[in-house]
């Protein structure tokens, strides 16, 4: 297989874009990525698009073709493929793009993610998101997405004694980072009190433990490493791509508060890159809920099971800590347009590795990781990227 590099990135502002459509959002992200790669669209050989539920959110399927068309590619008839794995759709689109280039099948490939969630009423968007879990045996009996993650949190706190305050530190830290990210949906710092006094959603999770409903799009361009210098002085190499699945329903897991798919994908990625946790300078993890970040940093091996609460409260995951986590602000502060999130994570790591992350820059960043989860852990995609 050939080595693959990221040569361009682009991301819309995340937020509620009431005056812009699904296709407008994508076109903006794609154009930004092309501009970043100083490339014309005629060079693109193929596209992969991550999108969870346009069928429910905007009654539109066939997203791959739609997006290639509105990006002006229709007359070139390039292959354009949508991949879906709920909130991990973006991560899987990136992975398919990497495989397509690594195989030699394609040269220049766009991996994009897009979700337009605010075109339906909040009840309808919550219901659509429940399609990421087991509709027949979770959704139909009253499980909501916050409810499922709340059961993970309850199990975790019961087993390991993490405090409610320790959990709140995740959100406080991510808002601190998001306040330094120009694309963030909620770029404002918060305090522990903001979290602890916010509305209870599903005990023990409160409103500020939950990522928001967001519109947004992100795109990256990948190419064979050997050609990357044609387009950029700072290609970022894909050191590993890994993906794992698990039971669709939370109740069928070996352990409620371990995402075995995160463990498996993480181990596969480290093995493929021939690296270990201490080689990683920063990681974007899937904090759809605060508890998800706690599980993620343990499941990926950045701290021991049961210790992530203290690790976070001690500042080890903050900028300047042992392993900065979610420098972008994460899903919590940056926003979570589900199909776009996995691609946005790659954009953030690329910015860090290029030294372009501004006030949230990690010093001397050489290797970064992304971790994108579908549902409550039925799909996980992990990627490792590095400076060349």
């Amino acid at each position, binding site marked *: 297989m050939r080595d693959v590099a990221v040569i361009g990135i682009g991301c819309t502002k995340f937020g509620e874009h009431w005056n812009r459509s699904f296709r407008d959002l994508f076109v903006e992200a794609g154009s930004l990525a092309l501009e970043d790669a100083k490339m014309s669209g005629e060079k693109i050989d193929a596209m992969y698009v991550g999108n969870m539920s346009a069928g429910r959110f905007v009654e539109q399927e066939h997203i791959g073709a739609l997006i290639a068309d509105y990006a002006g590619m229709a007359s070139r008839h390039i292959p354009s493929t949508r991949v879906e794995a709920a909130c991990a759709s973006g991560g899987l689109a990136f992975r398919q793009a990497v495989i397509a280039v690594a195989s030699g099948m394609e040269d220049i490939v766009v991996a994009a993610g897009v979700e337009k969630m605010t075109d339906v009423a909040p009840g309808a968007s919550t219901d659509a998101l429940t399609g990421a879990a087991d509709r027949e045996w979770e959704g139909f009996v009253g*499980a909501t997405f916050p409810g499922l993650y709340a059961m993970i949190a309850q199990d975790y706190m019961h087993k390991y004694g993490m405090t409610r305050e320790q959990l709140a530190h995740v959100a406080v830290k991510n808002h601190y980072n998001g306040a330094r990210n120009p694309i963030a949906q909620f770029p404002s710092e918060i305090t522990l009190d903001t979290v602890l006094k916010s509305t209870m959603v599903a005990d023990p999770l409160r409103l500020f433990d939950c990522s928001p409903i967001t519109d947004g799009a992100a795109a990256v361009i990948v190419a064979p490493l050997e050609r990357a210098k044609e387009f950029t002085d700072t290609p970022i190499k894909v050191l590993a791509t890994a993906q794992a699945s698990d039971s669709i329903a939370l109740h069928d897991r070996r352990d409620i508060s371990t995402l075995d798919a995160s463990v498996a994908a993480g181990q596969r990625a480290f093995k493929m890159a021939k690296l270990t946790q201490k080689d990683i300078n920063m990681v974007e993890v899937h904090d759809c809920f605060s508890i998800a970040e706690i599980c993620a940093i343990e499941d990926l091996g950045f701290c021991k099971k049961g210790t992530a609460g203290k690790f976070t409260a001690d500042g080890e995951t903050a900028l300047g800590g042992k392993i900065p986590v979610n420098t972008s602000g994460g899903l919590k502060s940056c926003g979570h347009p589900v199909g776009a999130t996995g691609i946005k994570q790659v954009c953030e790591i690329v910015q860090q590795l290029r030294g372009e992350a501004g006030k949230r820059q990690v010093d001397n960043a050489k290797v970064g990781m992304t971790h994108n989860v579908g549902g409550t852990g039925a799909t996980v995609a992990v990627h490792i990227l590095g400076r060349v």
Partner: protein
Amino acid sequence: MTVARFWRKIPQRYNLIGTKCTTCGRHFFPPRTFCPDCRRNGKIVDHKFAGLGTVVTYTVIMTEPDQFASPGPYVLAIIKLDEGPQMTSQVICDPKEAKIGMRVKSVFRKIATDGESGIIHYGTKFVPVE
């Protein structure tokens, strides 16, 4: 939830009828037609569960979806049935009394009302064992 889909699962939802692999003895609820351990050697038969179990984890859902037939906050739990498998269900009890390790038994209750059609769906919930 369409009528066709709900009716198909009535035996399972009403009476906790799952499946069992007679090759290895493993029980499945929600029912499976394929044993992950024995694979094609597994022989799957129906199995009626006794309805007794233990709360593995739970939450109290404050902002409920419109259609679920629960007055106010409700307790959602993962319950480990005594026969082995785990399932997600609601527990009818004072939210303050819910706790991990609590023993529960199944009861037949209204689950939800379909917004558009007004059809009422019934199924299994759990109550604490005294």
